[in-house]
């Protein structure tokens, strides 16, 4: 195995495109676990942290571009980003321990393609777009289209995610992400739910995106859930409908972390709770 730390995107792409056995290293919090378990045996590891811009969070068109090597801790410490997309930042902040926060990245969480990735439902709810560097140059792909199935992404050989873009947050808008874990920390999500919504001047939901994690082979954007609350005030009846739509949309499995029944039920519970937080944020309340 070789270790390379290219200084430019082009050099990184060249290394990645040279053979099938290349792996991208950003935070490394998934890759090093797989290396140790001998689940992957790369010929070359391409550390992208020394490429200019990879560790930066930059304002762009009212939104934020987050470099692929920005850690969760760096996101949490960025006041502007945290004010715009608190749900995404909190989702990233839920990944692992303080120690893992020092390294783990949004792009890595996305590329790991785990159905239970915490940041992915939040990014999907936020309408995030990944910028992908590759042999053919740069391309943008909606975050929801990046994971294909457990462990598989839409990235072509030689490609890597260079940044994630979070669009401008609209007026009277807010987002939230909640997950269920058995302990209070250090677990993989049994269910995750991201909600981003906008309110009209009257306080009714004008737009919404609701995404579920860990209840299907990949993140689920629950259009029916968004549909059911659009045009409504988030009263008890609307929240109950939202919860029911999410429970219905979940397609979970039984495994060591939870059961089908539990995950379906909790999908609704979390959607309801996340929507309440997102609504409060949209109203400018502290939540």
């Amino acid at each position: 195995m070789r270790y390379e730390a290219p200084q430019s995107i082009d050099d990184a792409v060249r290394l990645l495109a040279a053979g099938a056995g290349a792996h991208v290293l950003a935070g490394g919090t998934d890759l090093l676990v797989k290396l140790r378990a001998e689940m992957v045996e790369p010929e070359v590891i391409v550390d992208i942290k020394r490429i200019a811009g990879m560790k930066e969070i930059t304002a762009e068109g009212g939104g934020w571009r987050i470099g692929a090597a920005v850690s969760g801790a760096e996101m949490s410490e960025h006041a502007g980003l945290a004010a715009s997309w608190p749900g995404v930042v909190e989702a990233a902040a839920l990944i692992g321990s303080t120690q893992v926060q020092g390294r783990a990245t949004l792009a890595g969480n996305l590329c790991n393609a785990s159905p239970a990735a915490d940041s992915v439902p939040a990014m999907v709810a936020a309408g995030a777009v990944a910028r992908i560097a590759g042999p053919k140059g740069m391309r943008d792909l909606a975050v929801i289209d990046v994971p294909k199935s457990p462990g598989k992404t839409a990235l072509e050989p030689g490609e890597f995610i260079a940044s994630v873009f979070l669009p401008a947050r609209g007026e009277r808008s807010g987002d939230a992400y909640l997950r269920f874990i058995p302990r209070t920390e250090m677990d993989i999500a049994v269910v995750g739910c991201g909600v981003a919504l906008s309110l009209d001047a009257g306080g009714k939901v004008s737009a919404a995106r609701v995404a579920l994690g860990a209840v299907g082979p990949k993140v689920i954007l629950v259009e029916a859930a968004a549909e059911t609350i659009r045009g409504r005030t988030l009263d008890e009846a609307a929240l109950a409908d939202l919860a029911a739509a999410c429970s219905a949309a979940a397609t979970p499995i039984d495994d060591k972390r939870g059961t089908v029944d539990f995950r379906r039920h909790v999908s609704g519970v979390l959607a309801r709770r996340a929507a309440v937080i997102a609504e409060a944020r949209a109203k400018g309340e502290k939540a």
Partner: protein
Amino acid sequence: MALDQTGKTRDFKVVGTRPNRPDGIDKVTGRARFGADIVAPGMLTGRILRSPHAHARILRIDASKAEALPGVKAVVTRADFGDVPDHVADIMDNCMAGAKALYDGHAVAAVAANSAAVARKALRLIEVEYEVLPSVTDVDAAMRPGASVLHEGRQQETVPGGMSGNVISRVEFGHGDIEAGLKRADRVVTRIYRTAATHQGYIEPHACLATMGPDGQADLWVCTQGHYMVRNTCAAILGMEQGQLRVTASEIGGGFGGKTTVFLEPVALMLSRKAGRPVKMVMSRTEVLRATGPTASTSIDVKIGMRKDGKITAAFAELRYQGGAYPGSPVDMGSMSAFAPYDLENVKTVGWDVVTNRPKAAAYRAPGAPMAAFAVESAIDELAKGFGLDPLEVRLMNGADKGTRASYGPTYPAIGLKATLEAARAHPHWKAPLGENQGRGVACGFWFNFGGDTCVSLNVTPDGTVNVSEGNPDIGGSRASMTMMAAEELGIPYDQVRTIIADTGSLGQNEVTDGSRVTFAVGLATIEAARAAKREMCRRAAMVWGIDEDAVEWEDGAARPAGPNAGKFPPMTLKEIAAIASNSGGPIAGHHEVNAEGAGVSFATHMVDVEVDPDTGATRILRYTVFQDAGKAVHPSYVEGQFQGGAVQGIGWALNEEYIYDKDGILQNPGFLDYRIPVASDLPMIDTVILEIPNPGHPYGVRGVGETSIVPPLAAIANAVSAAAGVRMVQLPMSPPRILAAMQGRGRA
């Protein structure tokens, strides 16, 4: 050895204070050397190949490709060990599989190589041909006739005919007439309780460094709870004389019973013997979980009858424990301890020891008792609540006391159960208000505590400071306790004594650090060693003064003439006597070797408040208080630490920890990610109340405290969760899906 000055409280000077531990600085600076921190010149890395099957016949092992790999210095399989004595045969088989691999992760071969990378590669070159057999990991399934049988011919004469060969033995305890007692009850609760297998979860994986020469002499450095046990076991397996194998205990990063046997050590010695080089082996966390010694999973029937005033009229439990791939689950301990806190006219327990395709259970803190207490204390709680009675009062009414004939046979001397219950009843926690979705639970627990073979040497240096050598690894601050007891006895300051853990060449046999025995038994031997040294120092002073040695006594760190008739001499301090040691016959020391008896049983009552989220079934521990009898707390901070640590291990067991096997017997969660031990943010502070009912079998009244603290929490939490959730929880862990399902099924069931 009996309690000194029975009937009045001794005025201690050092015991009962909270000095800094002697190994503190090493452990906060990273200097302390644990198992994996030991190195030797020229050492190789040893690694183990493990079975991917839960149950399989090993048809062939071909290591020729691995042996040919450059950098590989030795390959070991079971064939290298040959025949071993019967008393270590199961241990041997567990360290390296023979005819069959009996669980997922069972060792089948090992290599030593000049780097970890080469060793890893070599393992993949070893070809093992398996014939996969049906497997069984559940205790009830393993008992069914027709279940795949692990061993032929191991069933003991205690088992009735016709049962599965996986049922190894049956035990029965108790007295009275259960049926007659049940007839007098106003209500009888009959339930089946189940607990999952849990792991001790020590943070330090097993590690050792072995070096063995062609002359048969060997040295082994190892993290273990008992290096004398390691010596004796390895010597038997390798056909060595015990005196030729010197074992040195490293610092130990947690054990809780899990390091009371061997896993890597005989293999490391064999690799070293074959390679002619030192070999270091360190387990990964995955190996620790797959292939060391978790505790038993259990299935327990309980039937208890109670009168409406709260009096228990009859109590019965049938306990089924699977202890993994070899006989010896802790079901006997569970059967003996199940009803130990109670004074019962009619009581009976029946225990079944069952083997399954899981790693062989090792001891885990009060082995066997927490599961039994979970079942019994849950049933008592249900009965008390059914009658609208206060669960503490019910326990006080039925509680064991001095003179009670225990359910396992003997009559108790002075014990502290009722003191813990009374302290619980008087504590503000008991009366504190609870909110919505919150519940409070209490439960009692018992543990036997042990003594056993123990050696201590105490040496007085020429400048009058003192070294204590003992043979039990210090797992939670025992060097501090020994230092305190030596200082107390000698009448000198704590900082004038230093205690070390001696290697196996330096002391006689020492029983393992287990059974909560160290502060009791090693403490007792330390006190006796100090007394022997004092006698010698009095004799030296008598020589100097020219008086009879009987006319000299030791007080406050000095020899003094005993009474006016002995003559008028100024006291000779320990330092003054040490200074003339050479002039008066030679170095001064005291030592004591004993099979220590008289360990006092210990009881605890735990109280816990929880909140259950009605939407998710998630449980939060809000408040926790431990009430336990310590006999005499030598270093109260470390007694509190034992109480707190045991309670939190119990919290993990109750709520989240479990071994999860798939249908093929493959462990699904061999890592700290999904084997979920409690993290700091899961917990509140753990309050402690130390009771001191002196143990009549120890000069200072000390009782072991380490194990009892894990016995009550499973039931206390189950009782609290059941109250909060409004439904009786009878299976551990009480994971959120299980609680939510129970709550959703409430009323329907």
